[in-house]
């Protein structure tokens, strides 16, 4: 045996559930059957079995889905349901999860209604953004309904009562039977072509689903959608909506309600206009009163009452200013003069004249001293000089020569040489002997050396 995975029960169940959930036919389907074993659980959910002659289908309708049911299901009731098949894993049981339910019999119509509704919705025929506002004060109202019956009477009576200034143009149509829908659609087109009305009311009085059926037909829906004139749908059924209701710009629950929506209330409007008129008058009176009050206030101001007073006041003010000016000026010059004196004093205190005088005195004093010192020095030097002169005279050779000494010179070429020794002369030399009062020129004719050498 080949190796094969052994599955758990849960695995199998989960796999089956996955298969169910992925199946397109089981994911969203319509089923016709008869209800049996119906229980409405305290949780709000409904449990029952759908059966036919051949089989049974365990079903559940959750509270969230059954809340919108307009009837209460019970055993034996034939219904058409819409929902999906899935598996309840705990019990390993497949069951039908019902999302919508409708009693069978109307089934075909209901299905058609649902399908058309979905299709038109997807096309955008119900889009809230394309809903047009109704004219606030329509002059002419178009009514598309049966010329007989309660609906047209209710509409006309209401318009007459509320707004007897508007015209009404009725376009008679069939409102039930196979010819109804095309007749209504054509009427909408005709009204648009005539272009005389400001708003359209399309409707009929209440009835069964079959009687209202024309308003669920596509041709009507498309005519309403194509209408350039805003459309109020007025199908007399409080609870159920028709396709026409979804496409219309405004849905009215009844023909009377449609007429009320179509026109304002003349009485209220008249009151409103009167109120506006009253407010206008009051506001005007108020404005005038306020203007008068302002004028009076201005007239009563002192400028007008005592015109000269102002001038007098101004004059006084000028006087005051003059005084003030003078005072300020005096104060200003006074303070300046004081400042000047102060600075002059300080300037004089630091004046160089005094220093100059002092320095002059110092200079004279110094010069005097210098002279004294110099004189003393000079005298001292003079004295010294005289003494030196005396000394010099004492040492002067002339003085010695006076006493009989002589100096002997030899003329040697141009030079004159003092002869100090016997060796400085030779026989025949011419010598000059200097005396204190002149000289004698001599000729050496004898030399004799002294005996005593000690004289050298």
């Amino acid at each position, binding site marked *: 045996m080949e190796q094969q995975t052994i599955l758990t029960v849960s695995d199998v169940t989960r796999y089956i559930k996955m298969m169910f959930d992925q199946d397109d036919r089981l994911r969203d389907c319509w089923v016709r059957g008869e209800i049996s074993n119906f229980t409405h659980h305290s949780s709000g959910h409904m449990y029952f079995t759908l059966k036919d002659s051949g089989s049974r289908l365990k079903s559940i309708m959750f509270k969230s889905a059954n809340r919108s049911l307009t009837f209460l299901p019970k055993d034996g009731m034939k219904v058409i349901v819409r929902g999906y098949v899935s598996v309840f894993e705990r019990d390993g049981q497949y069951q039908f999860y019902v999302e919508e339910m409708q009693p069978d019999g109307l089934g075909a119509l209901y299905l058609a209604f649902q399908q058309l509704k979905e299709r038109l919705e997807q096309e955008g025929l119900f889009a809230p953004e394309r809903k047009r506002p109704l*004219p*606030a*004060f329509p*002059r002419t109202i178009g009514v598309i309904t049966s*010329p*007989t019956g309660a609906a*047209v*009477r209710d509409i*006309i*009576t209401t*318009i*007459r009562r509320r707004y*007897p*200034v*508007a*015209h*009404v*143009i*009725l*376009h*008679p149509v069939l409102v039930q039977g196979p010819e109804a829908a095309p007749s209504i659609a054509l009427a909408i087109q*005709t009204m648009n072509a*005539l272009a005389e009305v400001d708003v359209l009311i399309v409707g009929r009085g209440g009835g069964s689903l079959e009687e209202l059926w024309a308003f669920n037909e596509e041709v009507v829906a498309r005519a309403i959608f194509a209408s350039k004139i805003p459309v109020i749908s007025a199908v007399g059924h409080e609870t159920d909506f028709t396709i026409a209701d979804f496409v219309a710009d405004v849905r009215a629950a009844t023909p009377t309600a449609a007429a009320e929506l179509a026109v304002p209330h*003349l009485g209220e*409007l*008249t009151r*409103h*206009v*009167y109120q*506006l*008129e009253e*407010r*206008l*008058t009051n*506001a*005007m009176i*108020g*404005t*005038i009163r*306020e*203007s008068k009050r302002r004028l009076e206030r201005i007239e009563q101001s002192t400028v007008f009452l005592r015109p000269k007073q102002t001038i007098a006041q101004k004059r006084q003010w000028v006087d005051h200013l003059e005084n003030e000016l003078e005072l300020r000026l005096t104060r200003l010059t006074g303070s300046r003069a004081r400042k000047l004196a102060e600075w002059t004093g300080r300037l004089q205190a630091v004046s160089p004249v005094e220093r100059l005088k002092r320095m002059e005195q110092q200079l004279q004093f110094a010069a005097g001293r210098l002279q004294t010192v110099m004189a003393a020095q000079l005298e001292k030097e003079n004295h010294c000089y005289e003494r030196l002169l005396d000394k010099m005279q004492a040492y002067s050779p002339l003085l010695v020569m006076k006493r009989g000494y002589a100096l002997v010179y030899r003329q040697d070429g141009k030079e004159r040489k003092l002869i100090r020794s016997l060796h400085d002369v030779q026989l025949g030399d011419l010598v000059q002997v200097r005396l204190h009062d002149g000289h004698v020129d001599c000729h050496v004719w004898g030399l004799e050396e002294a005996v005593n050498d000690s004289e050298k």
Partner: protein
Amino acid sequence: MTLRNEQEDVTFESALERLEQIVRDLESGELPLEKAIENFQEGMKMAKICRDKLDQAEQKIEMLVKENGEFLKKPFNPEDER
């Protein structure tokens, strides 16, 4: 005289709107006197237009009847039909 032929240039709606605007402006008390008087006169005119239009109670109720391929309007009284 019909609603359409009279005051063709001013619709009830625009007259009412203008009147409401004038009342608001005047009630604000911010208009200079001359402007206020001017607006007041216009407002009174608008109020008269509105009242006139509302007073014209000559309502026509007609039914379209197709004769020889053309639509004709014929007076309609729903009470007659009962």
